[in-house]
């Protein structure tokens, strides 16, 4: 790509400068920006696959595909869909792509603390991904337990659970190593004058996320090891036939997997917090409130896991404690939402695609969050648990939240990452079917759940058919919009206009360096003298 004025400015990170060229240069890079792009490429690929799987599941629910796809295959489909989406996309998603690319730049550093470890994390990620794919075709075939691998079914089923679980274990390693790297980076590599409360809020979000990754991921790692040992040696800890307890499995699984949902959403919230001030042309409302709410989500988020087990037969005391804690964890999210809206107040708003996706994020996340609160109320949970309502809830938060946040961040930082600008009109045009389709699909699921449609069902009872059709048609609009979105960006990478260094008028450090950034980020490490969002009082 453009390295024409190499004599005047340092070459961009996209230009090979070392002894290795082309693909090899990328696969051996320790540049945090290149690693971010490697993650991006890998994730888009897996994502497309999982998207296709989701699409096919909708067709099954139209009952048109039931001759082609057996019940066993359907069970494998939702397991694969869930595993890929969760472990290969939304958990690593924003930290691995944008955290890697922008965290060092945002705090004025030249790279992360352990660049080689960073590349190792990517290789762990790829190894896990490949194992996950292998598990589909080897052994007894694709796992059919759902992404939660509940014992004793996961211990008894003849499908290839062991390999899939091992893949998740390896992915967990990747996640932990990234967490170690980010915490150390933030503690040790901030530029002179970059005090904690002068950090952009995305860094706070990534920092909180990294702590959850460290404190929760090992629990899933050991749990998955136990599942494997159980399958191979029958150690009997989860197997009721040997005195084990399936509920212990559920506890251990959710001790990680609930905090994991905050691993997914926090960085997305962080990205949203960067975008709003830039387009409102004003400072963020309530900097400290947002920073501390990230920490609070990380802290309290680790304490609510058993709200996934209200109907499992655990003790009454535990039900009450966990329902209470679930309500408390919703407060910091509410604080963030109100501060975001407050930041729009008396701004001078420059409406651009990233802002559109940001507002979409807030709207959809609120629906997701509010449905979450409904499930957290005990009397309601006994009705909604394991129905399509849950499926609706988590698609709203994960897709409407994390993935929309991902899209917003991608639109915001795309010109910086690739030095190209996309067609804004095409983005607006693909937003519309995406938004309509999304709500048809997932609001349909919420209603289905309220009417008692259980999740993970290959065939549904006739009374649910109409809404299933609505949802499926919604998924077609959605996919249409998504394809438009990706086509636009892909086109822009190769044929887009050259982007300016600071197309949006942002104030954080990444906008002070060229697009795409040079290898070492900064010619000279900047000295920071003020907070991140200090716009001049007068109009520019």
């Amino acid at each position: 790509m453009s390295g024409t004025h190499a004599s005047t400015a340092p070459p961009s990170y996209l230009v090979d400068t070392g002894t290795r060229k082309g693909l090899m240069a990328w696969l051996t890079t320790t540049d945090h920006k290149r690693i971010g792009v490697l993650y991006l490429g890998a994730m888009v690929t897996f994502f497309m696959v999982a998207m296709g799987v989701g699409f096919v599941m909708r067709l099954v629910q139209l009952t048109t595909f039931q001759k082609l796809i057996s019940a066993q295959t359907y069970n494998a489909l939702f397991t694969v869909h869930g595993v890929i989406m969760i472990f290969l996309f939304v958990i690593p998603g924003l930290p691995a792509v944008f955290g890697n690319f922008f965290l060092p730049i945002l705090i004025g550093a030249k790279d992360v603390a352990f660049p080689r470890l960073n590349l190792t994390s990517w290789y762990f990620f790829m190894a896990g991904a490949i194992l996950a794919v292998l598990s589909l075709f080897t052994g007894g075939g694709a796992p059919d337990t759902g992404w939660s691998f509940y014992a004793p079914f996961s211990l008894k089923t003849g499908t290839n659970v062991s390999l899939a679980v091992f893949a998740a274990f390896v992915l967990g390693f990747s996640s932990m190593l990234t967490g170690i790297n980010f915490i150390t980076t933030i503690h040790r590599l901030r530029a002179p004058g970059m005090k904690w409360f002068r950090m952009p809020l995305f860094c706070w979000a990534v920092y909180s996320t990294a702590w959850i990754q460290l404190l929760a991921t090992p629990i899933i790692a050991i749990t998955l090891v136990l599942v494997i040992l159980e399958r191979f040696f029958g150690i009997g800890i989860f197997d009721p036939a040997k005195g084990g307890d399936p509920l212990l499995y559920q506890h251990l699984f959710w001790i990680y997997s609930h905090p994991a949902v905050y691993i997914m959403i926090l960085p997305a919230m962080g990205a949203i917090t960067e975008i709003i001030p830039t387009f409102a042309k004003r400072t963020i409302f309530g900097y400290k409130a947002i920073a501390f709410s990230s920490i609070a989500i990380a802290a309290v988020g680790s304490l609510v896991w058993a709200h996934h087990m209200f109907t499992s037969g655990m003790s009454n005391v535990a039900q009450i404690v966990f329902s209470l804690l679930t309500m408390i964890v919703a407060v910091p999210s509410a604080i963030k939402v109100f501060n975001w809206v407050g930041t729009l107040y008396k701004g001078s708003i420059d409406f651009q695609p990233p802002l559109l996706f940001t507002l979409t994020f807030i709207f959809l996340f609120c629906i997701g969050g509010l449905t979450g609160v409904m499930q957290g109320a005990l009397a309601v949970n006994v009705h909604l648990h394991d129905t399509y309502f849950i499926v609706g809830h988590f698609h709203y938060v994960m897709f409407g939240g994390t993935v929309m946040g991902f899209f917003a961040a991608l639109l915001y930082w795309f010109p910086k990452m690739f030095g190209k600008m996309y067609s804004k009109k095409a983005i607006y045009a693909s937003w519309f079917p995406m938004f309509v389709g999304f709500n048809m699909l997932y609001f349909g699921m919420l209603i289905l759940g309220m009417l008692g449609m259980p999740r993970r069902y290959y065939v549904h009872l006739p009374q649910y058919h109409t809404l299933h059709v609505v949802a499926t048609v919604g998924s077609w609009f959605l996919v249409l919009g998504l394809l438009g979105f990706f086509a636009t960006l892909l086109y822009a990478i190769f044929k887009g206009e050259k982007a300016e260094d600071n197309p949006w008028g942002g104030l954080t450090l990444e906008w002070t360096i060229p697009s795409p950034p040079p290898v070492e980020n900064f010619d000279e490490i900047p000295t920071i003298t003020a907070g991140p969002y200090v716009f001049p009082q007068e109009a520019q």
Partner: protein
Amino acid sequence: MTGHVHRDDLGARLGMWLFLVTEMILFGGLFIAYSYMRYRYPAEFHHGGGELNATLGIINTIVLLTSSLTVVLSIVAIQKADKRKAIAFLATTIGLGLVFLVIKGFEWAAKFHHGLYPSAPHLGTLPQGEQVFFGLYFTMTGLHGLHVLVGISVLTVLARMVGTGSIRQDRYIHLENGGLYWHLVDVIWIFLLPLFYLAA
């Protein structure tokens, strides 16, 4: 990057400690499982503990404690630029680690001999709580043994590095970090001893 890396020993130790955080939580998950099950089956755990050889467990504790000591001593030696002593201390640690594994091996062999291993026909006839006890025993001591093995390998590499001089008085962060790992393995064993061997 390599060649002109900016050196930050505190950063390196922070990274190592964060890694140890994950190790602590990893074993923490097992301790959680242990206490959950012990609460359910107090009598069976008592009984199961009686089947273990407490003497071997205690000897192994002393072995590991001593090996922990020799690791710190080797750091002190490096700080005093006493290369020969440092290597000697490391070699002692490695030796003690091997002793630990050998004793552990005998212990496991005895259990296998008595049909006390997961899925053994004999174990299947015992009360369920004892089956769980032995499941946990093999999992936890096994995972710990694996860590000892990794620790020995790491220390061996470190001893070599001391020999070649890449670890020396003004640059011994790798040795410190390797030592931290070894101590954590020791701490885990400190907990395993009363949970299993002294449970009776």
